């Protein structure tokens, strides 16, 4: 890389062109942090409704990651084998929830799993009613956030040399053993990265949740719902929860970047020219 070219007026202009976007995202974040005094932050956190929302968000987002690991890992393993014929269809399908407006996801979930939904009648027979429950929150979050894990893990899986898996098979390992002893140990940074991204997205999920799960403190009211519904009444509560969400998301992203740089693409650290 030729760093000398960056010096001089052209270089400063080039750098100055970064400012509009950087300021655009930094100023609102700064305003959020400046919008609350630490004393207020501590006091608001003690309000039962705020604490309930924090607790519910942490619980549901953790469960969403767990569910995603269970049902998403097989899908990402499948997607890491590009030669499968249904690859493109599957790949597109997995991408779909990430580009859908979350409200659409909420309506779709309601029409599928709601009391009057496609499967509602059968669920009713089993005595299960999903809308307005914490389970519905987890479903909404998983629906929207799982693709982030699936895509990230698939990239990790596909980076494993096929010869390794073949030689494992030659040594008598079955598919499960290959996965357990070769694939997972070699691709856990990608899996962890994906899980963190899914967690952060689940934490921020709102549109699908409020439509499918509703809004009830302690049961279905997550931090984003509490911010949305409570914003008009008590700005301090909204800002407190926002600060918590920004902090958690920041931690999640820093962790992800750290893993990406140290484990997944150590060679990719280079300057942009």
């Amino acid at each position, binding site marked *: 890389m030729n760093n000398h070219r960056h010096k001089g007026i052209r270089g400063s202009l080039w750098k100055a062109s970064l400012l509009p976007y950087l300021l655009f995202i930094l100023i609102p974040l700064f305003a959020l942090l400046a919008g609350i005094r630490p004393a207020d932050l501590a006091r608001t956190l003690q309000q039962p409704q705020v604490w309930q929302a924090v607790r519910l968000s942490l619980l549901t987002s953790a469960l969403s990651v767990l569910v995603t690991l269970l049902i998403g890992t097989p899908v990402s393993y499948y997607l890491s084998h590009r030669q499968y014929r249904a690859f493109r269809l599957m790949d597109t399908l997995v991408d779909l929830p990430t580009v859908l407006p979350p409200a659409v996801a909420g309506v779709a979930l309601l029409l599928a799993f*709601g*009391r*009057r939904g496609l499967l509602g009648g059968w669920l009713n027979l089993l005595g299960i009613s999903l809308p307005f429950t914490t389970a519905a929150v987890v479903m909404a979050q998983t629906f929207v956030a799982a693709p982030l894990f699936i895509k990230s893990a698939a990239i990790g899986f596909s980076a494993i040399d096929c010869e390794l898996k073949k030689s494992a098979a030659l040594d008598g390992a079955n598919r499960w053993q290959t996965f357990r002893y070769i694939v997972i140990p070699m691709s856990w940074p990608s899996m962890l990265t994906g899980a963190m991204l899914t967690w952060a997205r689940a934490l921020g999920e709102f549109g699908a949740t409020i439509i499918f799960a509703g*809004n009830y403190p302690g049961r279905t009211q997550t931090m984003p719902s509490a911010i949305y*519904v409570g*914003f*008009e009444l008590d700005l301090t509560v909204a800002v407190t929860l926002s600060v918590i969400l920004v902090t958690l998301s920041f931690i999640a992203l820093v962790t992800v970047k750290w893993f990406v740089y140290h484990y997944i693409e150590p060679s990719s650290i280079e300057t942009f*020219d």
Partner: protein
Amino acid sequence: MKKAFLFVSVFVLLLSSACTPGAAPERSPVTLNILAAASLTEAFQEMAPAFEAAHAGVTLQFNFAGSQQLAQQLANGAPADVFASANKKQMDVAVEAGRVAADAPASFVQNRLVIVLPPDNPAGITSLADLVKPGLKIVLAAKEVPVGQYALDFLAKADADASLGSGYSTRVLANVVSYEENVKAVLTKVSLGEADAGIVYTSDAASATGEILQIEIPDGLNVIAQYPIAVVQDSANSDLARAFVDWVQSSEGQKVLEKYGFLPVK
């Protein structure tokens, strides 16, 4: 570098063409921004074509949402010409923020509450007293939303009514499964059959005839919602905004509101 430059120049080209002002007409058409409570959606939308026909060049741009959201948008500087709120409290927020003059708001219509049920009434609710049946799924609007606060007012009044049994409001509230962010969300959850009952305005129930059943709330227990309307102080087209407010208050406007289940101001 070359590639980046190409991208930037294409981007700038696109931007500049988008920003080029068209040949400015002598008198540009006027858009009036009307912020109105979600419950006014159908009635105001029906009024719009007649008003626009009577005022050439004027387009009404509606923003329907929970009054509490609209008041907050106003307080934060959203461009607006008229604000119609579902209660005095949220109009006061706009007054306090300096967007509406203190003496500007006038009540233009009334609304009252009604219980709504899904068309097949899965929980078999036939009276107000049935709302305490354990295991019901009731949805209300959040207390931040005007209709949610009105619903709580109704429940408080009902507590004093001996015929409904003691602890009526506590037992009803125990059945609430969700506090929705606006009145239309309550109506949707009920008409979809996801909830067994909800409390909305008579006007919302009127807009959904056929999709829901209704149970009247007697006058003694009901809560009358007063809707204030006002021209926003810094409106660039205050004359036209005034004309819209007058239109809403005229017999023609009131007729439309009555058609949608609202009550005239006494």
